[in-house]
């Protein structure tokens, strides 16, 4: 059975309890874009095509790969992506 833990909000409750998504950038011009292959089958097919199209538009693109799709990205990989890219696209495929 799924149970929940209740906590009481310590804030003045001016913002929603659900964490909002990060706002999307209004433009991606000039950004370095990371493509993260999570090692799920055929994800690379999608990312190869995205890379082709981004490069045709002059974007700087970097490729990354998780060792297995079933695990969280290792901290080193997350740090590397954070330091090298402005934006990351990951492919969930099968």
């Amino acid at each position, binding site marked *: 059975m799924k149970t929940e833990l209740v*906590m*009481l909000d310590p804030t003045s409750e001016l913002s929603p309890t659900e964490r909002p998504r990060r706002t999307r950038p209004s433009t991606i011009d000039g950004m370095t874009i990371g493509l993260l292959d999570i090692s799920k089958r055929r994800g690379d097919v999608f990312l190869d095509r995205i890379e082709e199209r981004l490069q045709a538009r002059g974007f700087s693109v970097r490729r990354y790969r998780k060792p297995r799709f079933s695990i969280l990205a290792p901290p080193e990989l997350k740090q590397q992506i954070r330091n090298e890219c402005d934006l990351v696209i990951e492919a969930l495929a099968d």
Partner: protein
Amino acid sequence: MQSKDTLIAVVKKDCPTCTLIVPVLRQLRAAQPSLTIYTQDDPAFPEGLAPVDDTSLEQSYRLGVQIVPTLIRIDDARETARTYGWDRKEWERVTNVAGLGTGLPDVRPGCGSKTEDPGVAERLAIRYGGFTFQSREVTIDDSADPIEACFDRGWSDGLPVVPPTPERVYAMLKGTTRSPQEVVGQIPPDYGECTVEKAAINAVLAGCKPEYFPVVLAAIEAALAPDFGLHGVLCTTNFIGPVVMVNGPIARAIGMNSGVNALGQGNRANATIGRALQLVVRNVGGGRPGEIDRATLGNPGKYTFCFAEDEEGSEWESFSVEKGFPKDASTVTLFVGDGAAPIVDEISRTPESLARSYAACLRAAHHPKKVIDVAAFLVVTPEHARVFHQAGWSKQRLKSELERLLRIPVAELVRGAGGIDAGILPSEAPDPNGTIPKFRTGSLNIVRAGGGAGKFSAYISGLGSITINPVTKEVRP
């Protein structure tokens, strides 16, 4: 025919007295079939007597049971008699049945009711006691780490916080007699309303014990006093943050540190009371670093900076008494500080020499040429205090001497003096041959704290201006 009169017994199998009196319960069931037996742990105990499962402890809570076994007589839906433990005479009185438990000892004490187990009372009060919170609930999946969930929501100062569960907040509120919905004030910069309940949630986050809570509330009140100028304190580029100093019996009662390492780490009350105030500013007021908090460097005391004044080891009157509070009053003083700057003088044995050491160090607060908006609390430790005590110097005498020594010649303060461009403008010093006090009258204060070994003192410098001043509030229960 069902009698209007009935008996209620509350037992648990884990209690040897409860198991001892099973034959008595059997006797009573025969004499009074409407006897209800609530069992707190094993729903099958006592066997064969059709006990009512009270593993939820709802009935035990509603009946106010503290000891098992408890026996209650109800007449016309009203409780008319009660006893607990096993005492034959008492049980016969309550039941009006004679000859109970022949062969048993006359008296056996009972055991604690499960409602009294640690942490259980809070849970039951929330579930069955009709206690409700006004703050909204945030639910997280049980598989998530609650401490990480608090980090994710931005409730932390960067260190782990204690997850504010309803049970913990309820227990914290028991630390004060004040109503949870009483408004302590509006916390800048958002001017979010801080109720006693919101303060309690943040005190839980900070790791406070409920007995610290009255001190936290007084610290919040002091922070909100107009003289303290909290909005300015939290949004400035300056280093400062609030420093909490506690005086009076409460400091000893809750185990605060005024001795060895008084300004350092390691004491729960010191650490968490200061932190609770900062978390209220962060969470209720929305004062977060990099947003409205624009400190260029800040200081480590912005996690927490809280200590008690050493009153027992001092011959001087305490800061609180100086401010007009009675000696037995518990107070919280809030002032702004940017850290502790050391004064190391292991040689001086006369008050005149030591005062000169203090003045030379205090002169450098903020900048040796800075005389405007500087304030400081000088913290005198036992070994230094002894020098003044032995010479019969009162605190006021030391203060007057420091004021005299800290009148700085204008010639040393003007722009360009000493080859340093920084300094005051000629227009700020009408008399070029005069002097200017380093500290405005009242902006240098002297207090006592510290361990017994070490010929060191310290000063905590900070801003002192028309809008930023120390504030003292009495701690209310």
